[in-house]
């Protein structure tokens, strides 16, 4: 209960006590005061666009053409699902999500296991590892472009190739998607690490002590104690990363712009093209966005079901 009452000298002076009523807010009034602006904001920039774009996805409409939307029913969806080009983008996205999320999980969890032991400077190292996560993806894309550069980039140099003779990461149809995966893993493994670290530090020491007395090997301890206890947080990390990976756009724009050819053209990138480049096909873009939304919700639901199962045990 919050009761706001501004008391000051006026309390003692009946002459101006009528001002008090202006200073006293009831709980209900306070609730409304906080609630309505938020609701208004939410409705105008979240809820309304959500439903309006759903409507637009059933129309032919361009945001820059000065013409009203024309209802076409399911035509946009039919077009998209029959477009073999878009299926390639979906396949790219699927491969990207699978690769980047599984690598991030392995690397992030591994780092967390290493950093869980407190050693000198482990705090500093943890902070340093977290830095990539805090950078803007576009900036990351741009400077990794330099790092990947075949003639002077440091990446090939570190792999041991002589200058100019290494693979052209961003220009090769086979390697470009991998290049994006590498950068995404570099950027987001720390996020998985952070959540895993939180999960690991919540495991009480006495469980390991009990296990040691019970003569469990360290591998057995890992499988039977560490993993089950971290699983809920690890799964949340994976869920977040999966959703984010599905929507990856800025990193690709900074690195390859979807090229070479359509090797790194992810659905989100194509969505941007459809909506804001060339023909500004707002109706079809809305339909594509809704398809992506449904996929993400479906995948998330699988995770969440699994998560609940783990939690209930």
């Amino acid at each position, binding site marked *: 209960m919050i009761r706001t009452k501004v008391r000051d000298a006026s309390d003692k002076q009946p002459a101006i006590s009528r001002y008090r009523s202006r200073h006293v807010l009831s709980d209900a009034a306070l609730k409304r005061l906080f609630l309505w602006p938020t609701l208004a904001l939410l409705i105008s920039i979240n809820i309304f666009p959500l439903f309006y774009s759903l409507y637009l996805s059933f129309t032919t409409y361009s945001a820059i053409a000065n013409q009203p939307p024309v209802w076409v029913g399911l035509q946009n969806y039919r077009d998209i699902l029959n477009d073999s080009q878009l299926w390639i983008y979906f396949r790219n996205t699927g491969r990207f999500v699978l690769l980047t999320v599984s690598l991030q999980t392995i690397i992030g969890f591994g780092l967390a296991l290493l950093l869980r032991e407190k050693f000198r400077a482990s705090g500093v190292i943890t902070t340093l590892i977290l830095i990539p996560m805090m950078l803007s993806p576009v900036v990351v894309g741009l400077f990794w472009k330099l790092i990947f550069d075949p003639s002077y980039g440091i990446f090939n140099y570190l792999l041991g190739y002589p200058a100019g003779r290494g693979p052209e990461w961003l220009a090769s149809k086979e390697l470009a998607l991998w290049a994006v995966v590498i950068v995404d893993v570099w950027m987001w493994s720390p996020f998985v690490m952070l959540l895993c670290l939180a999960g690991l530090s919540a495991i*009480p020491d*006495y*469980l390991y*002590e*009990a*296990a*040691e*007395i*019970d*003569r*469990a*090997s360290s591998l*057995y301890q890992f499988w*039977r*104690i560490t993993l*089950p*206890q971290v699983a809920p947080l690890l799964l949340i990390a994976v869920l977040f990363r999966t959703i984010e990976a599905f929507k990856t756009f800025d990193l690709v724009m900074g690195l390859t712009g979807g090229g070479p050819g359509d090797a790194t053209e992810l659905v989100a990138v194509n969505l941007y093209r459809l909506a804001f480049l060339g023909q500004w096909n707002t109706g079809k873009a809305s339909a594509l966005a809704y398809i992506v939304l449904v996929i993400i919700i479906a995948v998330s639901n699988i995770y969440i079901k699994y998560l609940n199962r783990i939690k209930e*045990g």
Partner: protein
Amino acid sequence: MADVGLQHISKRFGQNLALDDVSFEIKDGEFFVLLGPTGAGKTTTLRIIAGLERQDQGVVTIDDEPADHLPPAERDVAFVFQQYSLYPTMTVYDNLAFPLRSPLRRIPEAEIKQRVEETAEKLRISHLLQRKTAHLSGGEMQRVSIGRAIVRHPRIFLMDEPLSNLDAKLREALRIELSHLQKTQGSTTLFVTHDQTEALTMADRIAVLDQGRIVQIGSPYDIYDRPATTFVAQMVGSPKINLLPAARENGNLHITDSPITLPADASVELPAALVVGVRPEDVVIEDSGQFSGQVMLIEPLGMETVIYLKSGGQTLVSTTPGITRLRIGNEARFSIARQRIHYFGSDGVRI
């Protein structure tokens, strides 16, 4: 089974001296109880024996061999943790089976099942076997925790207050069950408690620990009848022993602030100022009693009645069998069983 020895063990946590030169020997097949108030260092002692904590000084021996270099797994002890330490993601069954499933043991699953079920039977947790441990009550968790120890046949059992969270009836039942188990299997057991009844009823020998130091080691009989200090005297016995400051004068002991005077025991050398200890059962209420006091409070316990008597500025506690006819405010006559009086110096050490 095995015997265990501690020699001159000291342990510091920062500035805090948790154990100070602790030595004792647990013989093969013995039920050894470590009795002490909270913070005395009981858990620390167990952890050092188990190898979970490393002592600063001293040697731990198992079967007369130094064990200090051995990790917990190789010491082959079973530990009942004070805070249960159950594996929260597993069922009760899996918790009990966990130590048996260790790859180091290679016990066939059928035997594991049989042993787990036997153990659950003993501890009356058969109905819980398929439950997850996270939602058990404190007493249920405690029994699972005991079960995880007795399902094995270790060299020594280390039990850290394993009965503290049970209700009185269950505690009594399990006390008997554990004693019986220990006697039939002849298992070496180090049992930690701060409950004097548990200590007296279960132990072959008791070590009393106070602020990291061993105050006395002996049989329950020794500890009760020949307490080494006032601390031990107060630790065991319920209700607590009467400790009365006294002064010796002309072969008599005058209890301070009270008309009670006792003839001094000629067989021992008594200092001028001392503390007289009288167990409540040795303050005998009888009409022919030598002293008299006013009844301040009566606590009927059924089998016996606790009576608080005021004599001058001192209050004495007395226990009488059965129900008493006395009422609060009555004047009662009592005597003190003279041959059972304990004498302590003013520093608390037995004379």
